[in-house]
């Protein structure tokens, strides 16, 4: 399955890119994040992040679909 992953703020700095196409065998969002965390050395455990699929917040248990655009959202600091 192929998904697009978007990176923001310190996750983008750590990944070195704004987004990437990922070919993954992960069965869920947690497993996908764990794999990307291991590859890029992200500081945040999944518990400190929210996750969005196709520009909408979803629960970590939401299904992983081929072609989805996924973003792991580190703690926000607007305002």
């Amino acid at each position: 399955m192929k998904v697009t992953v978007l990176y923001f703020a310190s996750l983008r700095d750590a990944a070195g890119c704004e987004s990437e196409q990922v070919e993954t065998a992960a069965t869920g969002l947690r497993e996908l994040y764990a794999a990307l965390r291991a590859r890029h050395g992200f500081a945040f455990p999944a518990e400190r992040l929210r996750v969005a699929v196709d520009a909408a917040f979803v629960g970590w248990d939401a299904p992983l679909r081929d072609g989805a655009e996924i973003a792991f959202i580190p703690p926000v600091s607007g305002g």
Partner: protein
Amino acid sequence: MKRFSLADAPFDIAPLRESLLDHRAGAYAGFEGRVRDRNEGRPVDSLRYEAYAALAEAEGERILDEAMRRFDIVQARCVHRVGDLALGELAVWVGVSAGHRDAAFAACRWIIDEVKARVPIWKHERYADGVAGWLHPDT
């Protein structure tokens, strides 16, 4: 009308405020967040906001829609800057009109709190000592 928007350049509050007023609105409460010269005692040189624009706009709109349902208000809007900001520049504006001041104040405060907590926007600060970094608050 969209109630929440991102602005990639300085914006004028006056026409936004005007758009909230009508004869039912006896009260207007506004909030402005500006770039301070220090953060937790550390002198700040400049600041940059980045957003996940599509999600920020959707989540911001959701917050404003919720405010319209939760509070007895006439109208509400919020604009948040993205990009590079200088010291003193306006970072976020919230405006709420209502029949009475209780609802205007309560909704205005609730909106800025929710925007800060929920909208995917991140602050990148450069300090006078040369250090720079993203802010990812613990709570």
